């Protein structure tokens, strides 16, 4: 079977027990996606599958025939950073950096979700346009743990990208 990773077609023939996360990290050499718990509890492994965020440790590689996967490496490079990546650097939205790729992939999809009008648990009026207040960002980013405690700066980084995009 085949799947597209960061725009490149990849074959998968491996052990069917292989999670999408381990496939990316080991077989594709894309170690930017991190393993923090392997149980869907931390968000470090967040990648985009057909544009939506997913915990790649909670899904098997074999389940993604023909899917388009975007990892942190597909968003930008050190020389050519995605605006979210640049904002995380400017706002110090990280410390050890281990949760960071997951945070950024999650933020990318989260911004798109809000753009598409998806409400969250803290949205007051479900029919009004979703406004990404800091409280909304905190709620929507709560699936991504950061033990270094960079949350305050992460919210600032995402807020800046949201505002720059206006």
């Amino acid at each position, binding site marked *: 079977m085949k799947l597209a990773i960061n725009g490149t077609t990849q074959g998968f023939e491996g*052990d069917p*027990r*292989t999670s999408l996360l*381990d496939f990316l*990290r*080991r077989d594709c*050499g*894309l*170690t*930017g*996606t*991190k*393993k*923090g*718990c*392997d*149980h869907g*509890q*931390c968000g470090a492994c967040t990648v985009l599958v057909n544009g939506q965020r997913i915990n790649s440790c909670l899904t098997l590689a074999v389940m993604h025939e023909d899917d388009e996967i975007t*990892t*942190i*490496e597909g*968003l*930008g*490079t*050190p*020389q050519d*950073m995605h605006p979210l*990546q*640049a904002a*995380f*650097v400017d706002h*110090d939205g*990280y*410390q*050890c*950096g*281990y*949760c*960071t*790729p997951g945070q*950024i992939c999650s933020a990318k999809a989260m911004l798109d979700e809000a753009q598409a009008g998806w409400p969250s648990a803290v949205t007051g009026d479900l029919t009004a346009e979703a406004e990404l207040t800091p*409280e909304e*960002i*905190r*709620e929507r*980013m*709560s*699936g*991504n*743990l*950061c*033990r*270094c*405690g*960079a*949350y*305050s*700066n*992460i919210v600032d980084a995402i807020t800046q990208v949201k505002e720059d995009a206006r």
Partner: protein
Amino acid sequence: MSKSITLDQPDERNLLDRMAQGTIGKPRNRLEGPDKVSGVATYAAEFPASNAANGVLVTATISKGEVVSIDEGSVMDMPGVLAVISDQRMIARPAQGGAGEAPVQQVRQVDYWGQPVAVVVAESFEQARDAARRLKITYNADDAGELVLNPEDAKVWEEAPDTETVQQGALPQAMAEAAHAIDATYTTEGHNSAPMEPHAALAEWDGTKLTVHASLQMLNYNIDELADSLGLDAENVHLLSPYVGGGFGSKLGISPDVAAASVAAMQLGRPVRVVLSRQQVFHSVIRRTETTQRLRLAADSDGRLQGFGHEAKVTNLPEEEFAEPVTQASAFLYPGQDRVLKVEMARIHRMTAGSVRAPGEAVGMQALEAAMDELAEKSGIGPVELRLRNIPERHPSDDIPYSSRRLAECLKAGAEAFGWDDDDRRPAQRREGEWWIGTGMATAARIHNIAKAEASVTLMEDGTAVVATDMTDIGTGTYTVLGQIAGEMLGLDPADVLVRLGDSNLATGPGSGGSWGASSSGSAVQIACEAIREELCDMLGCKDEDLTLKDGFAIHSNRRQSLPELLNGRNIEKLGKLEPGDTEDDFSQASYGAFFTEVAVNAHTGETRVRRMSGAFGIGRVLNEKTAKSQCMGGMVWCIGSALTESMMFDRRDGHLVNHDLAEYHVPVNRDVPHLNVIMVEERDPAASPLQAKGVGELGICGGAGAICNAIYNACGVRLRSFPMTPDKLIAELPDI
């Protein structure tokens, strides 16, 4: 070649402020930032190694006893399985921070649930994981009478080995005579460091030399721990930790994965990778002990402390020397000539207790600061005013002066930034719908230490520089601050300084632990740069005072020469060495600060939300305002966890850790944390280090949970003396509305 400074006197030269580059202290972005946000930064398990096999640890399912047999045949026929190893060179416990020798190694002698007993190695991770799960092990469980699993069942309490007991004057009498006295007992539960990167090691053995990529904080000590465990010479062990995905104490000493991967690589003659599962991070590495703390505060009618008592009970496994130094800040923070400080330890069979971020103050300060709030209320003195009245002139037991101490400034700056009202502290006065609203504050304090450190700096012929040391960056900003120190001293943009870290072949530093890394290794970098400047002065025939280095140019006597021109094809390499000296004993040295917070407590459910939090901190010279503030913010997030959610829960019948993952052990998530306001109070501390900087990595966790506890009381009038203050504890006490 080298220059050495021993800090026997305060270093009043203040070299960095005399320099011209103007980069030190600035809120510069991290040098390695683009690599981290792009997923290019490589952590231990991620280094490529062709032909690497994968090991998965098997851990004990009893709390004490022995392994009778391991039935290798139960898994050796499974696809891909290469070996089942249960070897005396493996380690049964992690090494304690700074141990520098092997920890307890008998993996077949079980002392706690979750202890590693074997490692199963297979071609792939999936194969090894499956086989590890199916491996049949027979235990002889020793559950006869003596087995103590819970602190409340412990009968023998010994004096903690490393914490000085203080018995001064007559505290009971001071308590009896005090105008205002508090005698309160607080408890805290066990904590796990829970770094986001699980401990991991990739070991390669070439028949003589062992190379291990691992996630470790203090390579200098780790080399000896691993060499001793394996029976190798330290020269034949090479450790690499260029990136560490969080440590918080749990990676101070080698962890079981490091020894297991090494033994397996040596046995199989091929690279072996062992990564701990998240559950193993919880039950096979370290915990912070639970504590019971009795605080006695005896104040005169003005609120001035005449008597002070802090006695704590902690636990650890048999044979471990580490005892959480709960009273560490209590020794110097507040006055009181009638004084009792004591830590007692009992031996129980839970996983190794060790250093978790800010061992001692993290739990000691939160209880002390909650008790201080009780004293403020009882004496009718505002909490800030009470603390301002209790700043001692000299160390209350050792009678030595303090080095620079900005506690009063932090209290005032923090109060002002927060909009603190010190006068009206009546509880349960403000409600917004179903939420009680209240505020609380606390002092922050954490001892300062430096350690012996070496760093090499090379000024390259092209006018760039290379800094090299085995120091680590565990998220603390080491890459960046060392680049800024060298940049300031040598007149370079830090972008032109290549900082190499986390390689045990490089100059030896103390590593990241106890908040000592930046001031120790940073001082060594400064000293190496001084030596380079001396050589440049010789070349130019001028004095250091007359030499200005800025933007890659050397300027003196109205002459301006580019560094490449001046160096004319040569590199200047110098080794800087720092030794701690007499200032360690001549001054009481610590970082200080103050926390202010506002919480909302739900009147029906007892849920607490932190709505605002500010902290003002005095840490000596700030090396990088951005990364220093991030360190403080991280600490404040830990305060929220410690106050409200974090608690290791053990099954009291068999000693196993029940909440051994991130779904059940609740670290704060984004929504638990408000915007954090951090104020850095300007300070230089010449006694602390040649940089005049002190530690920052732990200060932010030392006391803030007390501020939250005090805010809960102020909000709803419930004074819980039991951390974390979970809804189930609060709900029983809440007032009717």
